[in-house]
């Protein structure tokens, strides 16, 4: 979707402000939320692309006003309700509905440790032929899907070169909508900065984006 999350190249956001000796979590609730999201993710009722898209659906004015963790919280509440984990009544009351069943947590301490150590690879060991090879000239497709995509607006329609093939990965545009993983090759694609931004930028500079087969056409 052409949302405000797709920020690459926008102006007017102000200077980058670095905080010295910044804590990992600025407030305790941020850490609790961070962990809650992983613990609920272990139920496998959604995937990482679903969670990213849910954050993108936060309306633009709210998205820009909120902190990172505030956005995550709002999107998390919506997702919990959508997938039937909690009801509005339960959230208001702060306790489970009378007579509701008690589950056994999906994420145990042991599984949390394994998740931290191993993660959840997005690569897929399936025989899918690459559509492009290293060094090939490509053009990013000019697509404007209303759903989730990882093809930023600033690269659409632009000419680039395949820098390397990373192998086969889950395709977010379908996976974010529970429409399957549609595994395909992901490449680092090099775009000259001038192709993206015009003649005012340095001639030798470039931006590399990771792109799936479905984002590219031969040029």
């Amino acid at each position, binding site marked *: 979707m052409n949302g405000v999350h797709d920020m690459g190249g926008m102006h007017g956001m102000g200077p980058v402000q670095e905080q010295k000796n910044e804590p990992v979590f*600025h407030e305790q*609730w941020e850490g609790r939320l961070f962990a809650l999201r992983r613990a*609920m993710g272990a139920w496998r009722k959604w995937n990482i692309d679903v969670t990213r898209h849910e954050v993108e659906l936060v309306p633009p004015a709210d998205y820009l006003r*909120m902190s990172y963790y505030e956005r995550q919280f*709002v999107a998390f509440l919506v997702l919990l*309700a959508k997938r039937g984990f909690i009801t509005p009544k339960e959230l208001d009351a702060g306790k489970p509905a009378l007579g509701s069943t*008690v589950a056994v947590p999906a994420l145990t*301490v042991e599984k949390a440790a394994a998740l931290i150590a191993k993660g959840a690879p*997005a690569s897929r060991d399936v025989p899918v032929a690459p559509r492009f090879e290293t060094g090939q000239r490509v053009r990013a497709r000019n697509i404007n899907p209303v759903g989730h995509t990882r093809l930023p607006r600033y690269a659409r329609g632009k000419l680039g070169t395949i820098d390397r093939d990373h192998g086969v990965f889950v395709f977010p545009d379908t996976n974010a909508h529970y429409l399957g993983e549609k595994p395909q090759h992901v490449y*680092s694609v090099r775009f000259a900065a001038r192709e993206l931004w015009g003649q005012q930028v340095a001639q030798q500079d470039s931006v590399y984006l990771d792109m799936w087969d479905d984002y590219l056409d031969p040029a």
Partner: protein
Amino acid sequence: MTTNRRDFLSAAVTAAGAALTPELHHTHDHEHQAVPSDLALRVKALESLLVEKGLVDRAALDTLIDAYEHKIGPRNGAHVIARAWADSAYKQRLLTNADAAIAELGYGGMQGEHMVVVENTPEVHNMIVCTLCSCYPWPVLGLPPVWYKSAPYRSRSVIDPRGVLSEFGLDLPADVEVRVWDSTAELRYLVLPERPAGTAQLSEEQLAALVTRDSMVGVAKVAPPQAGVSA
């Protein structure tokens, strides 16, 4: 006080087939105040609810928080960089198969399943961003700082990397090539910074102590050892 957020939540959840009506009073006008914020209370209430329903285990939450607050952070990445500086065979492995090379030192896992390491030289400067969200290599750098997740960094790094670097105090010569890596997929990037001058005698541990988080994101260089600190 704005009601936008409450309206949004109602609308969003109505669309989801439910009628969630949380009272989200928190606004940015009085953020980070001393009393527990509304959000702190709301997250606490949500945690209690999920625990009571048997959906989450508090001890598992503590395990996750402890790992990212105390165990996983940029010292891991600094260890990797120092090893690459000290051992050229390791450096080659790191640049050609980062996952395996990083795993040699015991690091890896969530949000670092597919790593790529890019090398800074006097001619080429690499920097990392995620314009679409906030992707970052957790196993080697920990969770990202606020500036990395902020709109200014995400919006400007790709169109004006030299301006952004300048704000970090790094003014690159005009003839250096800048490569910006936008983390649009599940690949996670780590910059191998240039080894500073005057470090030939340093041990791997001493080298690691020089390496900063910012240098591994590519928004800073590694400074030479200060006088009196070197071996």
